């Protein structure tokens, strides 16, 4: 599975478990404008760390802060690239 589809799938899974209604998950979706709350976000980040071994949030610059789902995918993409390097 690509990193993008992993992120999308995990967002959907966390939202379903937390009983949040989500619009279709696309790269343009602004996460904080949905029901995806801080607990959902925290669970997503923990799962992504389990799946990818990366926690890009812990060493983040202000410019990296993700606003959309696409930003989040890019953040994990860069973390994966750093690990591979």
């Amino acid at each position, binding site marked *: 599975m690509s990193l993008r589809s992993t992120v999308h799938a995990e967002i959907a899974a966390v939202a379903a*478990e*937390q009983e949040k209604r989500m619009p279709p998950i696309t790269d343009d979706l*602004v*996460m*904080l*404008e949905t029901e995806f709350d*801080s*607990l959902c*976000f*925290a*669970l997503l*980040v*923990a*799962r992504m760390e*389990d799946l990818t071994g990366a*926690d890009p*949030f*812990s*060493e*983040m*610059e*202000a410019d990296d*802060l*993700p*606003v959309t789902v696409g930003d989040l995918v890019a953040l994990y993409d860069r973390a994966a690239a750093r690990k591979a390097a």
Partner: protein
Amino acid sequence: MILRERLLEGGGLDGLFLSDHREKRDLAGIVGGSRDASVSETLAGKRVLLAVGGQMAAARAMLALDGLVARLALVPPGLAPEHVARIAADSESQIVVCDAEGLSEGDLPGLPRIDIEAAAKASAETGQETGQATEWALATSGTTGAPKLVAHTLDGLAGGINKAAAPEPGTVWSTFYDIRRYGGLQVFLRAMLAPASLVLSDRHEPVRDYLIRAGEAGVTHILGTPSHWRLALMSNALTRLAPRYVRLSGEIADQTVLDLLRTAFPEARMAHAYASTEGGVGFTVEDGREGFPASLIGARSGIEIAVRDDALYVRSGRTGRRYLGTAPEPLMAEDGFVDTGDLVERRGERFHFLGRRSGVINVGGAKVQPEEVEAVVNLHPGVSMSRVRARPNPILGAVVEAEVVLRAGTDAADPAALKKAIIAHCRPRLSGHKVPASVRFVDDLPLTSGGKLVRRMP
């Protein structure tokens, strides 16, 4: 000191307001306006439970009832009915001030009710001998499920606030917190004692909407937990906010969140405060670095900080006075020090926070007692024993992780599926932030010589 009297006598209320997501009210209108002598008489000297839905109603009631009632017990929003009943019993409340959002019809049978709209017209007879210092009762964020009630005086609650200084012109306070929690109440009092305008949040309001509303209301001074701020930092509405003063409290402020806020608000004064419902406001750190300088240990004006057995102790007039309820445990030691339960470690000239001695996990400000979660995990037929601990998390500071020793003979051919099954087993039995975010299988768990699980982080 009586809040409403101070506001009326101090004056300078022109143009000041209180607003929430629904309405904006003049502060002068809230504390002035006609008063109802009969409702004042009903409430005078009584122990009162405040169970309203929104923060505007709570603020109006606090201003009307301080100095009139003997005790004001604040019910924070979102509590289960049995916990509201527990607070009512522990505070020995005689009357409940409520609205439909704050208290359902069948709850607290037998306790007389006064609607918030009537109660907001009550007032202490200012300047009369009937005025009394109201005892304020605040709920802790709850470790074992049921919150504990801590009794405070208004003078103690306001002890960390510089009441002599004139407010910076144009100050508008706000907080992500609810003002019925210790941190939020500090902001409410800061605004009311200045006096200054105050923008109230709502727990159902998305972060983005709150930030936009706060920006439009011209908020200059704002408080949140590190978790509140981490979330706000991810909203593109954060740029709507132009604060002069950014304050953090309620959780450990790590260097990452401090640096991110510094970048987002380069001009703002930034402070992280060490405070708790029991210990009051301990100290405030303004150098932008995590932890606190070792020079804060010792006695300063009005407060004494000590480190004993790696934990932080506080003695001052700002700490809670005692716990309420039947057979309450003592809140402070005989020498007047309150044990905060927060572990610290000295590194050079600075102390750093390590977490809670009890192992209590702080999930974005909500406390989780590991034993409560372990008891649920252990009910799963495949689990022999478990240990629940904090897993560091960049969004909420920590989430819950369970280490599990499986029962002999448990089918673990598909470990991922078994982990999911254990988490799914917990979900209907625990509130959301207590459900383990992850499960790790281990061969055994270390025990102390006394046979207890070793809890202290290595």
